[in-house]
């Protein structure tokens, strides 16, 4: 039974479902509703099948290759390899895809008549299929192929609402960034190919021992920057906050929740699967970059008041956290501490999964709010908890999960990351100790800032009173969208409660990825579901925390309600207004909320607070506008400069084509003479 599922045919079925879904949608010309249903029903089916496929692969502990299917080109063979890592990522992808597609059924209704739903369905399914191909391919060229298709499909989804020039610009930035990154990845693979004379991952792995250290380091740098760009690490992140908000919300959810993780996937594949053994500085680099990304990411998020950009910046933060785990794993590998290596790797993988879950949830919720109000500007929200209570609760769950608050899943993976970093501080020489310490501190700082950021996001979006007519008119979104979000919310809780077992199995999974079967597991799950790290180094019990966290407040409520002053009278009246009548404009806005933090981190953010006082005809100025802005130093100082350099060169080279035929002939004469002079 399982064997029959976990087989090439199973994989082919998986891809063909999305294929039918994509092509079928385009064929259903005109009929928007049918296209919408077709596209999403097939993506849902595909996701379900993918879950069954990967789950049974993990359960039956099978892994298989699909070789051959060689095209008529040298070294492009459609060869796939399904191992534990691939299966895990298939599960991660398919879970998000499942709920995002359910959500999509409701969301895409808003495109009817405005845009071609057929194109949407095609690229949506293509995008998912490409992501699955990326995490299953075992041939460099095939991987690059799938990788580019993934970028391309997501690009077309980003510019799907193409009449808005902002989306077009965002898409442009996205595609050129990802293409440049792919160029680096391509170089890395070509270098590997020129060494191993094959693009097949296993052949490359087999040839790594004979590889020179210099070559390995070059490959590492190329691959790290290349995949890091896709993952959105700072300073290669600039496309991310632009592109993710531009796409339809459930696509943003997939991009932010899943697509950027493919970069992480390949880092694990390459650094911990193929290029072994690895030098120490690789892992340290990852930790340092991760620390920078997670702190800066959340700081930029704090300054944002576009809700989807805010979430996008949080993706950068969380990628940073994942890198902390992954980098830790790599350092431990180089230090020959396999058990700790497994611990950190588990932390990284678990956080990857959790982030996929709650970030998708948050993007979906944000999308619902944006759809209901027609704006993405947090300043224009407020009081939505009354008009759309369910969305509010779901967003709250997502916010708690991403802020690593118990009892949701984010808490456990962050806890685990902390543990692994602390172990890093305890083991290793002075350099390693301080690098880990830096990671630890920045993780803690990022955690605190994320908390503040989500108080701001949730508070100024849902609480208090509406600050605009759009927010006043908001309605709860359709059942499809709510159920999609609800599924993810439940998943957040389930992943949290089941964390102990998940972490253990992730560790044993790590064993196989890194081909270190003899590595002992540092964690143990006691009878009371308590996850023990080491010999009572640290321990956590998900069920206990869940129960207590839910029961205690209930108990408090119950006691205070029914045992103390049972006949209390509760009246409701306006908020205390100090005698003035209090308007929504007096509420704290998201910018105002983050102002003090923005000012405190001024040196990092280059933030500037400027007051614009209206000309005072009378003694008192009529109005004062305070604007808090931050400079995008990356665009301004790095990418802007590069772009203008290309422009200048281009204008300079244009002079060649000056329209004068005499000059053209002269070129030929000169070329002739120079060639003769050089050639002979």
């Amino acid at each position, binding site marked *: 039974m399982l064997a029959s599922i976990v087989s090439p045919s199973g994989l082919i079925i998986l891809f063909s479902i999305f294929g039918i879904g994509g092509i079928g949608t385009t064929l259903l010309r005109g009929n928007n509703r049918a296209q919408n249903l077709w596209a999403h029903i097939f993506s849902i089916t595909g996701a379900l099948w993918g879950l069954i496929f990967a789950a049974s692969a993990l359960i039956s502990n099978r892994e298989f290759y699909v070789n051959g299917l060689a095209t008529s080109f040298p070294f492009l063979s459609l060869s796939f390899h399904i191992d534990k890592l691939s299966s895990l990522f298939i599960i991660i992808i398919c879970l998000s895809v499942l709920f995002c597609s359910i959500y999509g059924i409701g969301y895409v209704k808003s495109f009817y008549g405005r845009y071609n739903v057929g194109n949407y369905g095609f690229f949506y399914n293509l995008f998912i299929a490409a992501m699955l191909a990326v995490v299953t391919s075992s041939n460099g060229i095939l991987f690059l192929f799938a990788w580019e298709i993934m970028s391309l499909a997501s690009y077309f989804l980003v510019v799907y609402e193409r009449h808005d020039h902002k989306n077009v610009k965002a898409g442009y930035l996205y595609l050129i960034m990802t293409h440049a990154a792919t160029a680096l990845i391509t170089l890395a693979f070509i270098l590997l190919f020129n060494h191993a004379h094959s693009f097949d991952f296993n052949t490359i792995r087999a040839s790594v021992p004979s590889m020179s250290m210099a070559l390995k380091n070059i490959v590492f740098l190329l691959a790290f920057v290349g995949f890091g760009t896709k993952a959105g690490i700072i300073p290669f992140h600039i496309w991310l906050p632009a592109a993710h908000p531009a796409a339809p919300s459930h696509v943003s959810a997939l991009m932010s929740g899943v697509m950027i993780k493919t970069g992480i996937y390949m880092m694990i594949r390459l650094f911990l699967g193929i290029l072994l053994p690895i030098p120490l500085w690789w892992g340290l680099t990852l930790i340092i970059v991760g620390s920078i990304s997670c702190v800066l990411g959340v700081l930029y998020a704090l300054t944002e008041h576009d809700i989807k950009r805010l979430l996008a910046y949080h993706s950068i933060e969380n990628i940073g956290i994942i890198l902390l785990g992954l980098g830790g794993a790599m350092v431990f590998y180089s230090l020959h501490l396999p058990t700790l290596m497994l611990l950190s790797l588990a932390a990284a993988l678990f956080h990857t999964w959790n982030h996929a879950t709650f970030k998708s949830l948050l993007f979906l919720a944000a999308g619902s709010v944006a759809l209901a109000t027609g704006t993405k500007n947090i300043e224009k929200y407020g009081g939505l908890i009354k008009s759309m209570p369910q969305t509010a609760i779901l967003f709250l769950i997502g916010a708690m999960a991403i802020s690593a608050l118990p009892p949701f899943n984010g808490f456990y993976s962050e806890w685990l990351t902390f543990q692994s970093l602390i172990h890093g501080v305890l083991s290793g020489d002075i350099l390693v100790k301080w690098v880990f310490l830096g990671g630890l501190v920045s993780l803690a700082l990022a955690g605190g800032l994320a908390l503040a950021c989500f108080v701001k996001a949730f508070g100024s979006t849902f609480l208090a009173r509406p600050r605009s007519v759009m927010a006043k008119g908001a309605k709860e979104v359709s059942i499809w969208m709510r159920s999609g979000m609800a599924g993810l919310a439940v998943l957040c809780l389930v992943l949290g409660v089941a964390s102990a077992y998940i972490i253990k199995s992730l560790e044993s999974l790590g064993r196989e990825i890194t081909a270190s079967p003899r590595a002992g597991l540092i964690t143990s799950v006691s009878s009371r579901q308590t996850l023990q790290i080491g010999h009572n180094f640290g321990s956590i019990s998900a069920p206990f925390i869940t129960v207590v966290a839910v029961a205690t407040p209930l108990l408090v*409520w119950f006691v205070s309600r029914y045992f103390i002053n049972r006949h209390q009278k509760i*009246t*409701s009246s306006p908020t205390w207004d100090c005698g003035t009548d209090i308007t929504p404009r007096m509420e704290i806005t998201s910018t105002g909320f983050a102002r003090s933090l923005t000012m405190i981190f001024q040196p990092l953010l280059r933030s500037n607070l400027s007051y614009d006082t209206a000309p005072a005809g009378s003694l008192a100025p009529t109005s004062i506008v305070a604007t808090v802005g931050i400079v995008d130093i990356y665009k301004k100082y790095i990418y802007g400069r590069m772009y203008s350099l290309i422009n200048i060169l281009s204008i300079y080279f244009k002079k060649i084509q000056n329209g004068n035929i005499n000059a053209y002939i002269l070129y030929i004469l000169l070329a002739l003479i120079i060639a003769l002079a050089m050639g002979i």
Partner: protein
Amino acid sequence: MHILAWALQILFVPLLAPLGVGIINKIKAKVQRRQGAGLLQPYRDIRKLLHKDEVISEDASFIFNIAPYIVFGITLIVGASVPLFTSVIHLPSSDLITVVLLLATGTFFLALAGMDTGSSFGGFGSSREMTLSALVEGLFIASILVLVILHRTTNLYLIAGSVHLDYADLIAVALAGVSFFIVLLAETNRFPFDNVDTHLELTMIHEAMLLEYSGKKLALMEWASANKLIIFAAMLVNLYFPVGLASNLQFGTIALAITIFIAKLLVVYVAIAVLESVIAKLRFFRLPGLLFTAFILCLIAIGLVK
């Protein structure tokens, strides 16, 4: 006996917390040459509030209504999870990171409740609160990290239970203790971070978030902040000065341990009270500097331990 110990462990914090506030206020009054309210005044306040009717803002959502229960409940959980008078019984939640994040959950809902009614006070109250807690959280972990490195565990009870301390590390522990004391002041809204006794909008942080509360909910909120105070005091004395904790559950030892514990708490309270009487509240934007100094102390401490 075991049951009794557990009961004590769980009830200790909520029962004694108001007394602590009372003590501090009394000492401050004395220092200020005032008679001051009785030690039990906080209990009376809570009781009074519990029996009052409530007025709730029309704009308030369910967040406003559930927040007090969550905030108070969290303090109960944490109170039961930190070592108080013994180091032999402990909950699965008595882990450093867990405690930090549980407390963060309380802050999260407190801040949301502050924003919920749409009053400007609540808004900037929670903004300031979150700003501080965002900065403090890192310091919190860092200051305890010294102990974690020393004792090779993140379990608070094991830290408290490990008596051996070679003198080389004492200085590190002391430094970390100082910075944890600053964490305490920040987290419990004490001088120089906040002033619990004033409702002056320019200065208040914690009280600003509670402005809209009344009756039972206000009682729970005040009570919860009292709990927080005793929790941090307990962590300070038991983690950095782990002396006199009962290593078994005999009646005698526990009784002794509790007296020692209360004595240690008194020291902290006196310190807080004196401090609040002699120093002024810092300007808000000077606080990060203070926290940073404390953070540097932590780093030095971590550098000292091998």
